C-alpha cells in the first residue's frame, strides 16, 4: 500500500454531481461545489426521499400555525457553527430575509420574527406551501456574522475564503483543487449529540466527474473511488464481472428512479401548436426501446402516460384512471391514424408526411451534444417519428446553444428534465411544466420552455401550491384537473425516468444503500441538494469493512 | 537605340542590409552593335540586364528605348510592345525551359501572345525558318524536352525565338557561361552572325576573352559602378582604370603566361580614378580618348586628365 496523506480507512471517495472545477464556496448560489450544501452548510429539515418524510435536522420542527401564514421553526438544541459559536434563530431569520436574489422566499416572506434563541416565526404573505416545503430542506442556513458584512447585491459574487466558510455541518472544507474538494469531519459537530448521528468517514473526497472509462476503471479498482453518482454506460455487463461493485438493485433497473425526461415541443411553431399532432407524437414513441437499448435496462419507463415518478410522495396523485381514459401508449398505428385524421398525409409520395396544405413538414429534436445517453435515446425517438412518416432529425447543439435556444424559445422540440426531480410533492413538476408563460422574445428560464399558453392550468398550479401539504385529497382534486388538461392537450410528453445513478465499491466501505441486505435505507445520492434528501444519511450509515 | 541614363538599383531586403547593386550607370547601345557588360560576380551586370528587360524595377534613372522612357510605362500592352523589340536570353539554358513542357512551347507562347491572328501553318513555317537560321534542324528539336537537348541547342532556340519576334535588341545574360568550350564558340559565332543581320545586343559576361571576341564596345563594372567603357579594342589594349587593368592581367591566355606578361605602362589617370570601395562622391564618366571613358570622382572638380 502506497504512502498517502489520507488513511484509506478514514476516507470515502465519491464522484458524480461535481461537473466543474470548484468555483466558489458560496452556499447561496446555484452552482455550488457538490457537498457544500449538506456537508458544510445545513438546511432546517431533511427529506427522506424513500419514505416521503420530512425529518428534523437543524430544526426540530417547522410547523404551520393556525393562521396558515406563519411557519414556526424550532431549532434543535445545541446547534453550533464550525467555529464553535451557537447557531440561533437569528441566523435562520437572517438567512430567509437576506436580500440576495437567490433567496428562495424573496417576494413572499413578509417577516421573520425571532421568538427566542431557538424559535423563529416565518410569516408569509402568500403561503405557497409546496414550494416553501421544498426549500425548507434545500436551502442552507448561513451565519449572520459573515453574511451581514456582505451587501445583498454582491452576495452571489462573494467568494468566501476557507476561513470564511463557516458552516454548521458535519464536515468542513479541508482543501480543494481543480478536480476535487476534500471535506474533513468536524468532530465537534453539534449533531453528534443533537441528532445522535455520526459520520464514520473522517474525510469525504469529492472528485470532479471524470471520463466514463476512467470512472469505471477506478470504481472497479476501488483504490481511490468508493462511489459514483454518474451514469456509467455498460454498467450491467461490468457489474456482472465485478463482484465488488454494488448497485441499488442487483439486477435491472439497478438504479432508483429520479427524474422524468420530457419531450418539449415548441408551441409557438407549426405543427406543434396542433394538439392532434402532439398527441400523435406521443403514440409514436417506443419507450421500451429507450429503456432497453439506450439505457441497457438501467432505467424504468413511467408507469403510465401521466409521467409521474414512482415515488411515495407522489403516489397519491398517480390517477391511473385519467391516464387510462385520456392517455396514450406506444401504438404507431394509432399515431398514423391520428396524423391522417388531422390531415398530415403523405401527398407527394416520398414516404414522409406533409402539412395539410401540402407544404413540406420537417423538424428537429434537440439534446445537448455529449449527453450520450440522451443522444442515443433521441436517435430512437426520431427513428420512431420517421417510422410514422414524419421527417424528424436528431439535433445535437452544444450545451450552450441548447440552453440559448431553449431560453429564447427558438427550438423545434427538445428533451428536458430540469425541474422534474424527485421532491416532496409533484408540485415541483407541474410548476416546472406549467406555472409560467413567457411569450417568445422574452427569456424563459425556469420551465415551460415550449411556451404552452394555458392560463387555467397556470392558475391550477398556483392553487395546488396554496393547499397545505397534508391536505392530499384537496390537492389531488386540483391535480386531477391539471392532469386532465395535460393528457388532453399533451403539451409535453413524458418519455422515460432517469435513474439515480449509483454504483459503489464494497472493498473498503460497505452497507451502501440497497434494496435488500442493507440497513442503509437512504436515497443514494451525493449530488448538490440531494444530500438533504438522503445522501447525508447514507454517508452516516456506511460501514467500514 | 537603347539609352540608359543614371540607372541605379538598391535592393532593400527585409533581413539584409541594403545592397547597392547598380550605381548611376549610363550607356547606350546603337543599332547593330554588341555592347559587353563585363564585371566580376556581383558587380550588377544581371541587374542591369533585368532592368532593361523590365524584370526588375530600377530605383532611379531612365531607360530610353527609341526615345521613350520605358521605366514609366508599365501597362501590359506597352510592355508587350516593348518585348517585341527587346528580348533576352538567359544564363542557364536548362532552367530557361520549363522542364515539364516540350521546348517548342516557347514558340507556342509567342504565337499566342504576340501573333494570335497568324494561321497555325504560317506560323509553323516561320518557326522552322527561324530554327534553320540559327542552325537547328526543326525536326530534331521540336517535340523534345529540354533535358534531351544540349545547352547550345537550347540557347539557339532562344535566339531563334528572338528572331521570330524580329527583336531589335537582345539582352544576352551570360548565355554561354554554362556551355562547353566548343559549343560556346558556336553560340558566340551565331551572335556574331546576328549582329551582321542588324540585331543589337547587350552581352553580359564575366569572361573577358569572350567579351573581347564578340563585342564592339565594352563596359567594365565594379560593384555596380561603371569604371571604364569604350571601344573594345581601345579599352582592352590600353586599360586605364586600375580595376580593369588588374582584370585584364588576370585573364588566362593561350599566348603568354601570367608571369611572362610584358609590363604595362603606368596608368595616366590614377589620381582621378573613382574608387567604388569608398562611398564618398558619385562616379562620373570622363572621356579620355576617342570612345574611351573612365570613372572619375565628382568630388574632385577640375582634376586634370
Amino acid at each position, binding site marked *: 500500500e502506497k504512502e498517502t496523506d489520507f488513511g484509506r480507512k478514514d476516507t470515502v471517495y465519491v464522484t458524480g454531481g461535481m461537473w466543474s472545477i470548484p468555483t466558489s464556496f458560496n452556499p447561496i448560489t446555484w452552482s455550488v461545489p457538490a457537498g457544500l450544501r449538506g456537508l458544510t452548510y445545513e438546511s432546517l429539515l431533511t427529506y427522506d426521499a424513500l419514505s416521503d418524510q420530512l425529518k428534523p435536522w437543524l430544526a426540530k420542527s417547522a410547523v404551520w400555525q393556525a393562521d396558515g401564514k406563519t411557519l414556526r421553526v424550532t431549532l434543535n438544541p445545541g446547534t453550533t457553527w464550525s467555529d464553535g459559536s451557537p447557531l440561533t434563530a437569528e441566523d435562520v431569520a437572517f438567512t430567509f430575509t437576506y436580500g440576495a436574489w437567490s433567496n428562495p422566499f424573496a417576494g413572499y416572506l413578509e417577516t421573520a420574527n425571532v421568538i427566542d434563541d431557538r424559535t423563529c416565526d416565518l410569516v408569509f404573505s402568500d403561503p405557497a406551501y409546496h414550494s416553501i416545503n421544498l426549500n425548507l430542506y434545500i436551502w442552507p442556513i448561513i451565519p449572520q456574522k459573515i453574511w451581514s458584512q456582505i451587501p445583498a447585491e454582491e452576495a452571489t459574487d462573494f467568494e468566501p475564503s476557507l476561513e470564511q466558510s463557516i458552516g454548521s455541518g458535519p464536515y468542513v472544507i479541508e482543501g480543494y483543487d481543480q478536480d476535487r474538494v476534500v471535506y474533513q469531519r468536524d468532530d465537534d459537530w453539534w449533531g453528534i449529540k443533537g441528532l445522535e448521528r455520526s459520520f464514520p468517514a473522517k474525510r469525504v473526497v469529492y472528485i470532479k466527474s471524470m*471520463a*466514463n*472509462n476512467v470512472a*469505471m*476503471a477506478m470504481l*472497479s479498482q476501488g483504490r481511490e473511488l468508493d462511489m459514483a453518482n454518474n451514469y*456509467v*454506460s*455498460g454498467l450491467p*455487463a*461490468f457489474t456482472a*464481472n465485478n463482484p465488488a461493485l454494488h448497485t441499488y438493485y442487483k439486477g435491472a433497473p439497478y438504479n432508483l428512479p429520479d427524474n422524468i425526461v420530457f419531450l418539449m415541443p415548441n408551441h409557438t411553431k407549426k405543427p406543434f401548436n396542433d394538439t392532434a399532432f402532439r398527441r400523435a407524437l406521443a403514440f409514436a414513441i417506443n419507450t421500451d*426501446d429507450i429503456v432497453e*437499448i*439506450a439505457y*441497457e435496462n438501467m432505467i424504468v419507463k413511467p408507469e403510465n402516460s401521466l409521467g409521474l415518478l414512482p415515488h411515495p410522495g407522489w403516489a397519491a396523485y398517480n390517477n391511473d384512471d385519467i391516464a387510462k381514459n385520456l392517455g396514450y401508449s406506444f401504438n404507431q398505428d394509432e399515431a398514423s391514424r391520428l396524423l391522417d385524421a388531422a390531415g398530415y398525409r403523405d401527398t407527394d409520395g416520398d414516404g414522409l408526411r406533409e402539412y395539410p396544405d401540402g407544404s413540406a413538414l420537417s423538424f428537429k429534436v434537440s439534446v445537448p*451534444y*455529449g449527453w*450520450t445517453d440522451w443522444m*442515443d435515446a433521441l*436517435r*430512437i425517438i426520431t*427513428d420512431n417519428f420517421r417510422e410514422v412518416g414524419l421527417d424528424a*432529425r436528431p*439535433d*445535437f*447543439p*452544444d450545451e450552450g*446553444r441548447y440552453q440559448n435556444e431553449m431560453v429564447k424559445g427558438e427550438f423545434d422540440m427538445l428533451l428536458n428534465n430540469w425541474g422534474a426531480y424527485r421532491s416532496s410533492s409533484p408540485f415541483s413538476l407541474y410548476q416546472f411544466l406549467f406555472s409560467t408563460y413567457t411569450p417568445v422574445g422574452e427569456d424563459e428560464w425556469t420551465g415551460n420552455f415550449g411556451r404552452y399558453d394555458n392560463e387555467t392550468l397556470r392558475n391550477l398550479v398556483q392553487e395546488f401550491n396554496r393547499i397545505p401539504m397534508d391536505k392530499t385529497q384537496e390537492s389531488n382534486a386540483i391535480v386531477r384537473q391539471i392532469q386532465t388538461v395535460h393528457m388532453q392537450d399533451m403539451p409535453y410528453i413524458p418519455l422515460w425516468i432517469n435513474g439515480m445513478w449509483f454504483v459503489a465499491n464494497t472493498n473498503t466501505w460497505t452497507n451502501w444503500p440497497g434494496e435488500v441486505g442493507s440497513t442503509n435505507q437512504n436515497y443514494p445520492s451525493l449530488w448538490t441538494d440531494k444530500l438533504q434528501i438522503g445522501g447525508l444519511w447514507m454517508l452516516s450509515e456506511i460501514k467500514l469493512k | 537605340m537603347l539609352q540608359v541614363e543614371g540607372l541605379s538599383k538598391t535592393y532593400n531586403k527585409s533581413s539584409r542590409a541594403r545592397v547597392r547593386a547598380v550605381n548611376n550607370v549610363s550607356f547606350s547601345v546603337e543599332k547593330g552593335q554588341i555592347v559587353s557588360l563585363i564585371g566580376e560576380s556581383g558587380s550588377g551586370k544581371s541587374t542591369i540586364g*533585368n532592368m532593361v*528587360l*523590365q*524584370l526588375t524595377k530600377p530605383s532611379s534613372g531612365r531607360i530610353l528605348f527609341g526615345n521613350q522612357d520605358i521605366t514609366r510605362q508599365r501597362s*501590359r500592352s506597352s*510592355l*508587350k510592345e516593348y*518585348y517585341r523589340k*527587346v*528580348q*533576352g536570353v*538567359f*544564363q*542557364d*539554358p536548362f*532552367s*530557361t*525551359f*520549363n*522542364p*515539364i513542357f516540350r521546348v517548342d512551347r*516557347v514558340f507556342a*507562347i*509567342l504565337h499566342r*501572345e*504576340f501573333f494570335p491572328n497568324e494561321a497555325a501553318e504560317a506560323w509553323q513555317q516561320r518557326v522552322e525558318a527561324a530554327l534553320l537560321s540559327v542552325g537547328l534542324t526543326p525536326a530534331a528539336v521540336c517535340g523534345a*524536352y529540354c*533535358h534531351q537537348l544540349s545547352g547550345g541547342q537550347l540557347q539557339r532556340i*532562344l535566339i531563334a525565338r528572338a528572331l521570330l519576334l524580329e527583336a531589335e535588341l537582345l539582352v544576352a545574360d551570360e548565355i554561354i557561361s554554362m556551355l562547353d568550350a566548343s559549343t560556346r564558340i558556336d553560340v558566340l559565332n551565331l551572335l556574331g552572325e546576328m549582329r551582321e543581320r542588324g540585331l543589337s545586343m547587350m552581352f553580359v559576361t564575366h569572361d573577358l576573352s569572350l567579351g573581347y571576341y564578340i563585342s564592339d564596345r565594352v563596359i567594365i563594372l565594379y560593384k555596380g559602378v561603371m569604371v571604364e567603357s569604350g571601344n573594345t579594342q581601345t579599352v582592352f589594349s590600353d586599360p586605364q582604370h586600375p580595376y580593369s587593368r588588374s582584370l585584364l592581367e588576370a585573364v588566362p591566355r593561350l599566348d603568354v603566361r601570367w608571369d611572362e606578361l610584358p609590363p604595362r605602362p603606368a596608368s595616366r589617370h590614377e589620381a582621378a580614378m573613382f574608387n567604388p570601395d569608398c562611398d564618398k562622391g558619385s562616379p562620373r564618366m570622363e572621356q579620355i580618348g576617342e570612345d574611351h571613358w573612365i570613372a572619375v570622382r565628382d568630388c574632385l572638380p577640375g582634376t586634370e586628365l
Partner: protein
Amino acid sequence: MRLKDNDILHYALRNRKLRIGLAIIAFFMLVMLAGPLFARWEARERAGLYPSAPPNSTNWMGTTKMKEDIFSQFIFGTQSTFLIGFLAGCIGTTIGLSIGFFAGYVGGWFDELLMMLTNILLVIPSIALLIILAAYLPYRGVQIQSVIIGCTAWPWVARAVRSQTLSLKQRGFVSLARISGVSPLRIIFEDIAPNMLSYVVMVFILQFGGAILYAVALDFIGLGPTRGISLGLMMQEAFQNNALQVGYWWWFIPSGLSITLIVSGLFFLNTGLDEVFNPKLRDQ
C-alpha cells in the same frame, strides 16, 4: 519533376514505402468504395439482434450498444473520414497554394500583408475559428467539419509554397515567360504550379492525414459532426460507452486502428514519394 521521365515511374514502383502506403490506402479505398455493397444497414440503423454483440455471422464486426452494425459504421465512417481528409486537404492545399503563390510571386507589400495574415492565423488556435463557425451553423456535418479544418490548416502550406515560389521565380523560365508577355496569373498556373506538382502532392497528402487526425480530436472534444458517422465519432462513442473497459474490443479497436493505419499509410506514401522525387533520398 519530369513527367516523361520514366525513372520516376521506375522508382515509384520499386519504392517499398510507397508500395506499403499505396497498399494501405488502396485497401481503405476499397473498403470505402466496395464496402457499401456489403453494408446491409445504415450507419445509425438498429440492425443487430443484440446490443454490444461480438462479431458474428450477421454483424461481421459486431454491434454497438445501440445495436448498430459496426461493419456498416466502419464502411460509412471510412467514407466520411476519407471525405474529411480529402475535402480538408483540398481546401487547405488550395488556399495555401493560392496564398503562397501570390505572396511569393507578386512580392512587395502584398507579400508582407499575406504573410502577416498567415502568421496571425498560425498563432490563433484554429479551434477558435471552429467555435465561431460552429455557433453559426445550424448543425455540423462532415463536410462542414472538413471545410473548417481546411480553412484553418493552410498557413503552413502557404508558407512553404511561398518560399518554393520565391525560388522558382528566380528560374529562367519564369523570366522567359515574363518577357513573352504572359500574364502573371498564367505564369503562376502554367509555369510555377506544375513545377511544384510533386511538392503539392506531398503537401496535400500531409494535409490529408493531418486533417483526419485533427478531426478525430475535434470529434472527441465534442466539436465533431452532429450528423453522420466518422471513424472519429465511432471511436468517441466507443469511448463514451466504456467499450474497452467492459470488453467490447470490437467496438473500440477498428476505428482507432483504421485511423492509425490510414494516416500512417498516408505518411508512408508521402515519404515514398519524397524518395521517388528526390534522387538524394533514394535507396541505392
